[in-house]
């Protein structure tokens, strides 16, 4: 005698197994989908970071150029400062010499009172 399918415990077990397998397949596909989102997102993030790096590198190159230009300008300004300092030093030395010369000349000159006295004494 054949058991009706609806009451057959084997059929019920198979249906239960089938349902469990179906859930398992959906779970697996769900995991795969979430994983795929993660991969696409990570790819995008890497792409975005690479673009950022590229932009930063471009900015870095431009900044380095600017630094080099500023360094050259600084160098030029330092040379000019040194030249000006040397000129200042020379001018100061000359100034000092002139002052000393003037002082000597002033010192060498006979004061007015003595010249008057000398004239009055008939020696001038």
């Amino acid at each position, binding site marked *: 005698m054949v058991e009706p399918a609806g009451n057959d415990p084997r059929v019920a077990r198979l249906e239960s197994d089938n349902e469990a397998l179906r859930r398992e397949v*959906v779970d697996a*596909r*769900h995991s795969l*989908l*979430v*994983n*795929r*989102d*993660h*991969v*696409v*997102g990570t*790819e*995008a*993030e890497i*792409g*975005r970071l690479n*673009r*950022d790096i590229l932009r930063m590198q471009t900015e870095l190159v431009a900044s380095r150029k600017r630094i080099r230009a500023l360094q050259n300008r600084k160098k030029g300004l330092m040379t000019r400062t040194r030249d000006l300092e040397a000129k200042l030093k020379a001018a100061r030395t000359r100034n000092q010499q002139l002052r000393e010369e003037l002082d000597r000349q002033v010192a060498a000159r006979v004061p007015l009172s003595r010249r008057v006295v000398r004239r009055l004494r008939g020696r001038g």
Partner: protein
Amino acid sequence: MAGQASPLFSIVTPVYQPPVDVLADTIASVRSQEHTDWEWVLVDDASPDPEVRRVIADASADDPRIRLVARDTNGHIVAASNDAVAEASGEFLVFLDHDDLLTPDALAEMARAISGEPEADYLYSDEDKVGEDGELFGRFPKPDWSPERLRGQMYTSHLSVMRTALVREVGGFRQGYDGSQDHDLALRVSERARRVVHVPRVLYHWRAVAGSAAADIGAKPYADDAGRRAVQDQLDRLGIAGTVESGREPGRYVIQRRLDPSLRVSLVIPTIGQSATVFGERRVMVVDTVRSALARTEHEDVEVVVVHDTPTPPEVLDQLREIAGDRLVLVEYTLPFNFSQKVNLGCLHATGDRLVFLNDDVEVISPRWLENLVGPLDEPDVGLTGAKLYFSDGSIQHAGHGYWNKHYHHPFRYWTRDEAGPFGELVVNREMTGVTAACSAMRRDAFLEIGGFPEALPSNFNDVDLCYKVAHLGYRTVWVANCELYHFESQTRDGAVLPWERHFVVRRWGIPDVDRFTPAAVATPMMDPHRLLDARLAEPRATTRRTGSR
């Protein structure tokens, strides 16, 4: 400036009876080009006034690059344009009407674009209009290459530059399409072009005088029919199932798509089965969503996958069973709220090749909404489509996303249903950077390829991220103007956005800067109606004076 390797441009101009002073302005605009490698073929289509030929002949005598071709009989614009194309010897054709103006840098900019994109076969620029008093107005900042939009309107228009060999390969302008012969040519050339390039600068001033198409879009009624036929021809050539109809205003076209009857479409609707008051009546939102969705489509193979949270009332599920019958698939969701996960699970239980994401708080308005929404996905490079959504007062809630200036926007929000938008934006289908997930559709293969909705974003920005992923994998996103629904968003959603949600999207895709398809200059006049009212109340006298002076 153009170097030695720059291409020779052949400017082609059919001429018929323009005002002579206007023609002289056009000639002056060409002769003042910064780029010097050009020739200009003017075909006089038997203008009755001999002065027209004399003006061209004088210009030709002054500059050997200018050539006059005189027709004995008037053959109309297609014949005259084809004569000009036949005479051209340049690598690229530049289409200039006999009364319009090129900007001085027009050819130089095109040469620069070609040098940056050697495979460019078709280039177009932004344009504006020039009035009778010489005033410039109506600047049209165009989107990047948008093949779907070109079906809805001749948006590339001026200035168009096409590779000569390709124009000849497709047979030039076609007889019988007068008035829309340029649209027809653009459609046929773009089908074979390796690259179509948008130059985002105004290089062309389109003269708007009384009776011209620039001043009045309906000035040439025969052109509308020719344009409709041109678009229909393209659908037929490409094997796209659909019928083209004239739009609400001349020069705009609406495509009614057809679906393969054997194609299964799965509607995926997440819900918790809540009720709300809409249009003065208490509704179970998801029930009315499903009822209107099934009622307003002729497609039969529709599966309804409802992902319901455990607390969903059983009577709601009973009502759904009653409406959808054996087309209903119920998926119970037992976890804390996560929109992305609910939709993903729904899609994994769905058996259709087309997946439609539908919020449970919408009501379909337009007939054949499903055909029009899903139809564009038959094109393999279309990955995502979206719909036009309204608040319950009929103002626009969603007409596509725009991502610019560090934010994610809803351009054209609060415009009304009867408005066409600044350049027909609201009545033609078009490519967009993104669309809302409240009503959108994907092919199953594309959905799996991009990894579905990001489950790390349970509430906000999951659709933004999805749209970015679609574009990242090279698919187009098409917004469908003739798929209309109400979206009773405020009835069901807390709009609060958390900083980390935005950061998630920015970390993946960067900070939004310039939108390729909705330039901010077009879309920013969107305003909250209350703010608009405030602005109007603040300037009542100015408004009255302007009205009274007319």
